[in-house]
């Protein structure tokens, strides 16, 4: 089936793929889906919680399918443009609904750690996620984009629709608040 093509099978750039999607190419869409599914789900899950994130991801990809022709190659990379869509969808959901508690995040595991490692890892992730949850949503999104998605400050600013100086101000405030919240973590060497 055409949908079974994976991102690993394709060396096409995002730019080429999104241009093809704009012309109704389902194979290109499937490649972008494989390439970004986990990335945007992780981003959305930390913004709105796991359950809402599934809907946000689905909405984001549907929007990509319908609006791919609006993306302009000369205005920057595809990823910041797409993350802006995801971010806006998440913000809409946050405004409509209270965020889901991050206790649910402990159920997401990767690899096969020992029970002790799994517990420590789960606690750390839950604690980090909880610390992130305390941040205002724009600061949280700025941290997610710069630290987890590897965006440059300029790209993160583009995704959040702010200037670079505004993005840097968000990161400074986020770092200050996270430093306070995570000071407790640093005292426990098993979690760092």
């Amino acid at each position: 089936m055409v949908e079974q093509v994976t991102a690993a099978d394709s060396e096409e750039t995002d730019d080429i793929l999104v241009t093809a999607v704009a012309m109704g190419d389902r194979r290109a869409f499937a490649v972008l889906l494989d390439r970004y599914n986990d990335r945007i789900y992780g981003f959305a899950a930390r913004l709105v919680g796991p359950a809402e994130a599934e809907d946000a991801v689905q909405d984001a990809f549907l929007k990509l399918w319908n609006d791919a022709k609006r993306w302009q190659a000369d205005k920057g990379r595809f990823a910041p443009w797409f993350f802006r869509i995801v971010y806006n969808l998440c913000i809409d959901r946050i405004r409509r609904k209270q965020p889901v508690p991050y206790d649910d995040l402990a159920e997401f595991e990767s690899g096969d750690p020992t029970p002790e490692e799994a517990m420590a890892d789960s606690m750390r992730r839950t604690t980090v996620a909880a610390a992130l949850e305390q941040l205002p949503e724009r600061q949280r999104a700025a941290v997610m984009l710069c630290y987890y998605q590897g965006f440059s400050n300029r790209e993160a600013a583009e995704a959040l629709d702010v200037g670079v100086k505004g993005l840097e101000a968000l990161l400074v405030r986020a770092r200050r608040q996270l430093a306070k919240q995570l000071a407790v973590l640093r005292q426990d060497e098993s979690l760092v």
Partner: protein
Amino acid sequence: MTEEDFEILLVRYGHDVSLWPEADRGAARALMAQSLTARRHVAESEALAALLAADHLPTAPSGLRDTVMAAVNQTIVAAAQTRPEISLSARILKFCRTVWPQAVSFVAASVLGVAVGVADIAPLPSTDQVYDQANDMADNPVDGSGYVLGYDGDDIIVSLNEDGE
């Protein structure tokens, strides 16, 4: 360089000051040498980066990809149903249905135009007819003021009365 400037540069270039642009590096090191706060910012930034780097984002549930693909396929099907494919004969029929009132109006207007034109441009009398008419007139005085003598092809020739009028 102030401590606030230093914080901005920390989020711009990262906690490893040796990787900062040369223009900022000297001032940053000077500030770190004298400011406990600046050194604390670096330590916090480094610890935070390490903590976040060790953190893993949740991965998408296994069924989400298929759900998204199914939703897109559904969108495509729905779009196709709202724009049904029309056969050639149906297109011709639709075209004819759309165009026939205009076509009838056009033909009617054309016929009417020709009819009016024909009626307005009546055929000229032949030369024989003019001669006959002139001869009839020649046999009769014209308002008592003269006589019609003939027709030279362009004009009717009239004989004026005795007063020369």
